[in-house]
């Protein structure tokens, strides 16, 4: 199991729509929002799957960037 702390940077005014989109992805938990940046944690089977989720989120409308801050493996 891989667990990653991720910052998602969004355009002005896009927070609500991005949060709605994130709510559809079961691996993602949202911990807070600050200045167009959303603090999330991704839980996935492995690091490759984290990357897949990151790629998926980065394609959302209004997302400027997805930045992993930490990744750990829960054996």
């Amino acid at each position: 199991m891989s667990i990653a702390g991720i910052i998602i940077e969004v355009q002005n005014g896009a927070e609500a729509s991005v949060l709605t989109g994130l709510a559809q992805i079961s691996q993602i938990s949202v911990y807070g929002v600050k200045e167009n940046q959303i603090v999330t944690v991704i839980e996935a089977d492995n690091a490759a799957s984290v990357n897949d989720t990151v790629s998926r989120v980065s394609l959302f409308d209004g997302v400027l960037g997805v930045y992993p801050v930490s990744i750990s493996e829960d054996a």
Partner: protein
Amino acid sequence: MNITRRQLLKYSAALAAASAIGLDLVLPKELMGAEADVEKWVKGVCRYCGAGCGVYVGVKGGKVVAIKGDKDNWNKGFLCLKGNFLPAIMTAPDRAKYPLLRKGNEFVKISWKEAMDLMVDKFASAYKADPQSVAFYGSGQAYTEESYFMNKVFKGGLGTNNIDGNPRLCMASAAVGYVSTFGKDEPMGCYDDMYHADCFFIIGSNMAEAHPVIFRIVNEQKKRGAKIIMVDPRKTLSARIADMHMSFIPGNDLAIMNAMAHVIVKENLYSKEYVDKHLVFKKVTDPGPPPKIDKVGWDEYVQFLDEYTPEAAEKISGCPKDDIIKAARMFAQSKATMSFWCMGLNQRTRGVWANNLMHNLHLLTGQINRPGATSFSLTGQPNACGGVRDGGLLSHLLPYGRLVANEKDRGDMENFWDLPAGRIQPKPGPTAVEMFRDYGAGKIKAMWIACTNPGQSLPNVDVYRKGMEGKDTFLVVSEAYHPTKTSELADLVLPAALWVEKDGTYGQSERRYQYLEKAINPPAEARPDLDVMIEFSNKLFKALGREHEGKKLFAFKNSEDVWNEIRQCSKGTAYDFMGMTRARMKKAHGIQWPCPTEDHPGTLRRYTAKHGDVLVKKFDPEAADVSFYGAKADGNKATVWLRPHKGAAEPPDAEYPYALTTGRQIEHWHTGTMTLNVPELKRSAPSAYVEINQRDAAKIGVKSKEKVRLTSRRGTIVLEAKVMDVPRDGLVFVPMHYPDKMINSLTNDAFDALSKQPEYKICAVKIEKA
């Protein structure tokens, strides 16, 4: 605790991300120990960086079981990820518990008496043969009382300046920068300035990872409209939230800062009133030694800046000229600009020059001496400022702004310590790198290293490690952990009490001194370093036939006795701690010097009478408000230095085409002896890697997680590649924390001629697929 490991990891990940953008996310009580599980809370300071966050340590059954931020301190209760996991460092399996003596390739347990007798014998024999053959290497993590005491032993008692500390590796350029520009060391401003600033100029610092709690406040101000300019060749987590990120070819930021000054002058953005009232201009006309320094006029300074057009700076640095112009305007025209920098400026062969140029921008624009406008050097260790810079532990210093090379200062300290005239030597001793060279060459025969890990942290470390293995020399290492990359080379390891296992004082980046109360006993036979130092010094002087002198010089029973002498030693100086009694320090959430009387609240901002520095009137009675009273010889004026652009000592070339830089990750601190002992942090960041951008990775033909070999002129290392859009083209980054992958085998030990601080931040490497 009703929390699963998975929940813990999720929260760790969230906290790391939240800290990076300054989001207030506090760990739930059940994660770190609920208050109900704690018998008492003991006031202290975080053990890690120079931010100096106030903490309360939760104790139960003689163990540290919890930690929480001090809501009444400057950090308002916030701690970073590392700080939140501090309890785990106390119970690590590799805590040093007994004195250990090397026997061949093994260490054997011995008694404290045996250890002390051997150490005294070795130091006494070496000293009798040559008083300059003994040395002490200290630390910005030791308590103020410990550093002051050892300074007194070596410079005062033994009459040798063979005493230096690891702040030479991280802060020396900042210290010399402050002294050469303002007359005295240490920032004049404070963390409170962040709440008044509307422009932050951050250069050579990844605050989001290295100083997350300070960066939280910067972010808070950004939310209120403040702008952030980030100057860094990596697009770090800090740079990602900046309004403007100025990337540049590593080592070429001096050109950028001179070009910003050029724009400020040409566009008339400088403060003529401030320039006329408070500044002198100087240049070095002959580097010497000794250097010849001339005062020059405004016109010559303007002429000096002529060549640093934004276009010229772009050619040198690769930073777009329009960015330089925009940054200069933002810096000058904001209501209040606060700058931050750290190792990116300091760990350079032109570190002092870079510091001077940073100060120049504040002085020219008058962005100084008022709330929110200040030049602020961040500090890497919790007591580099307090114990080493202020306390004068470095080989050229004496306590509280005095210099060994200054006859009056030596006389003052000889009087204060009641020493015979001429005891303190006028020639500065060897600095960190020089000291380890001397040890390797056998010039220093007996050396004591306390509370630091130079076997991993020195640049070009393999050379010095070989020296530390010396056959006819004697190396003592006081450490809380064993083995470390230094203790494994020792002849004698002394187990040290760690953090709140002893009491003492830390002084952090904004001149705030804070008392750390003892919370628990050290494990097994580990002892507070100060107790060991006092016992050793008395026994050494007895062995030298100077027992009576030793008893007089070292008549301290505890750290409070030492603190009281420190207060007296600072009395009347520009530091002045007289009002910081131990009783007051126990109650306060830190006090900022100068604090000359017991009813004085401490000083937020120095050099301005209007904003509360009472020493302005003492040292410069005629001053209406601003006075740089440490610079008496210059009429209490600050100096704008004409410092030309100069790049790194070892820039990339055809054979070694990449620049290597090193630094911190948010999870770890320094050489990892503490943080790599915290399972949660180690799981999050388990090993070293090399960060390469996508374009360079394609050229090398490497993908993430593949192995690459990095080679410099000094060493080679194989690391996993992490391909990411963080470093600029031609730059690679490796974290500094990992003992099994010591990046300092590759770094350059060339150092700044003025500060003697090595250039960790830039060296040339080649990269191949491994």
